[in-house]
C-alpha cells in the first residue's frame, strides 16, 4: 500500500502555517487603541469662556497645549484634503431652516497633520482630538481665530446617548 501523508495531518500542519501567515499579515494593521483619558470640551464651555467671567476664561486657557476632544460639525473651509477645516456647533451647510450660523466664539479652527480618512457628511457630528489652543491669533493663510486645535485627528462620533424607555420614564418622573 502506498503511504501518502494522511490529509488530516497535512492539513494540521498546514493550519499552523495559515495561522502564522495571517498573523504576519494582519498584526501590523491592528493600531494601538487607547484614547480614553482625553478630556472633552464642549462648545458651551467655549462660548462661556468669552461671555462669562474671567475665571472661566482662565479655565479654558488652562487647556492650552493639552490634548482635548471636541465634537461638532465639519465645515470644509480649506483644501479638500481636510488639512484645515472649521468645527462648528451647528450644521451650517445643511440649510436646515432654523439653525442660524454661529460666529467665531463657536467655531474651532482645526489643523490636521496626518491624512484624514472619513466619509464626509455635513449633517454628521465628528469627534476631533487634538492639541487645544485658545486666544486670538492670526494665521497667514486662514486669518484670525479664537480657538484652534493642532495636530488633530478625526473620528466618527457616536452621537447622543440612547435612553431606554424605562430609564427615560424614571428620570422624567423625578420631581
Amino acid at each position: 500500500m502506498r503511504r501518502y501523508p494522511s490529509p488530516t495531518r497535512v492539513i494540521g500542519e498546514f493550519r499552523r502555517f495559515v495561522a502564522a501567515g495571517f498573523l504576519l499579515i494582519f498584526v501590523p494593521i491592528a493600531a494601538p487603541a487607547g484614547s480614553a483619558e482625553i478630556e472633552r470640551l464642549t462648545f458651551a464651555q467655549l462660548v462661556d469662556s468669552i461671555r462669562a467671567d474671567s475665571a472661566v476664561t482662565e479655565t479654558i486657557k488652562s487647556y492650552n497645549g493639552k490634548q482635548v476632544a471636541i465634537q461638532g460639525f465639519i465645515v470644509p473651509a480649506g483644501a479638500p484634503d481636510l488639512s484645515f477645516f472649521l468645527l462648528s456647533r451647528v450644521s451650517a451647510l445643511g440649510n436646515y431652516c432654523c439653525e442660524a450660523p454661529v460666529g467665531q466664539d463657536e467655531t474651532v479652527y482645526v489643523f490636521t497633520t496626518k491624512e484624514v480618512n472619513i466619509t464626509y457628511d455635513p449633517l454628521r457630528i465628528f469627534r476631533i482630538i487634538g492639541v487645544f489652543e485658545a486666544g486670538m491669533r492670526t494665521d497667514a493663510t486662514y486669518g484670525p481665530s479664537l480657538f484652534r486645535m493642532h495636530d488633530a485627528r478625526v473620528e466618527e462620533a457616536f452621537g447622543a446617548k440612547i435612553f431606554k424607555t424605562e430609564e427615560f420614564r424614571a428620570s422624567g418622573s423625578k420631581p
Partner: protein
Amino acid sequence: MTIFTVAVKYLRGRLVASTVTAVSIALGVSLVIASVVLGRGIRDGFIAGATDYNLVIGAKGSPTQLVLGVIFRMDLATPNIEYTTYRDLQQDPRVETAVPIGVGDAFRGFRYVATNNVYFAAFPWRHKTFALAAGRFFSDDPPSKPAYEAVLGAEAARSTGLQIGDRFYEGEEMAEYPLTVAGILRPTHSADDRAIFLSLPSYWGMNEVARGMAVKPLTAVLVRPKRMSDLPSLNRELNVAADTQAVLPSAVLLTIFNMMAVAENVLKMILAIVGLIVLLYVFVAMYSATMERRREIATMRALGARRATVFGIILAESAGLATVGGVAGLLAGHAIAYLAGLVLGQSGLVTNPLRFNLFELAVLVSVILLGTFAGLLPAALAYRTEVAENLAPLS
C-alpha cells in the same frame, strides 16, 4: 548546488508553465496597483486643482455643476447671475477678496474664462501662483472700450499653437470680434492650463445679447472672507437669496470623493476575488508540478538530500514565481496607470502616476508571502515523499 539554483533550474525546466504562472501573478498585481494609483491620482488631481478661494457663488442649481463648471471646467456653466452680486460681495465687510468669473464659449474646446486681473494675483494666503511664460496679462479695459485681449493657459497655447499677437475666433458670428493673444501662462497643473482668459468687458462685448444688457451677466464669484468663521453665515445668506447659491468647493469635492469611494469599494471586492483566483492558480500549478516530480524528489532523497532541502526547494520555487510576478506586476501597474493618465490627462486630472509609495511595498511583500504560502502544501507533500515507494519500478 544551493536550494535556489536547484529551484531556478526546476522553474526553467518547465519554462512555459512557470512563465504563465508568473504572468498571471503579474496581471493580478498590476490590476491592484493600477486601480489604486489611478484612484489616488484622480483624487490628488482634484485636490491639486482645487481653488484657493473658500466660497463659490453662482446661480441656483446643482452645487456639483457649479464647482465642476467654474473651477474644473469639466461641466457646462451654470446660468448667469448679475454683476451686482459681485459688487455687493466686494463691498461686504466680511469679504476680503471677491473675483468675478464669466465662463462661456470655447476655442477648439479650450474654455473662455472671463475675469479680472485679481484672478492671477498672488496673495499671502494663496498657494497657487500664476507666471507668464511670454507676453503680458490682458489690459484692464473699460466696458465701453473692450480690448479683446486673451491670456492663454500653457496647454491651450501648446495645443492650439497660438503665438503672442495672433488673432483667433471660433464660429462665424465671432469673426467680427477676434481675440488677440497678449500673454501665455506657465503651467499651473490645474484646469487653468486649458483655459483662455479674457477681460469681462471683452467677454460682454463679444456677445450681442450681453452688449445690450443694462446689468451685465456673470457666471460665478469666488470669495475669500476676512474671517473663516464668517463662511457659514455668508453661505447661508447667499443660499437663502432668491437668485444665488453659495457652495464651499471643498464640501462639493468631498461629496464627489464619497461617491468615488462607493465605486472603489466595489472595485476592491473584485480585486480581492482576482487575488484569490491568482493564489489558487499558483497553488494548483505548484501542486501538480510537485506531484509530477515525486520520482525525481525520491531520487534526490536517495542521493542524500535531506527532507528540509526538498521542502526548501519547492518553497523557493513558489517564492521565486511570486517575486518575479510581483515585481513585474508592480512595474506593469504603474505603466498602465501612466498610460491611462496620458489618456485622462486631457482633462487635467491624474497626478504622479509614477510615484511609488509604502502601500505598494506592502502589496509586493504580501504577494511574495502569499505566493510562498501557496507553495506550502505542495512543499509539505514533497517533504513527506517516501523514497522507497516512489523509486519502485513504474511498471
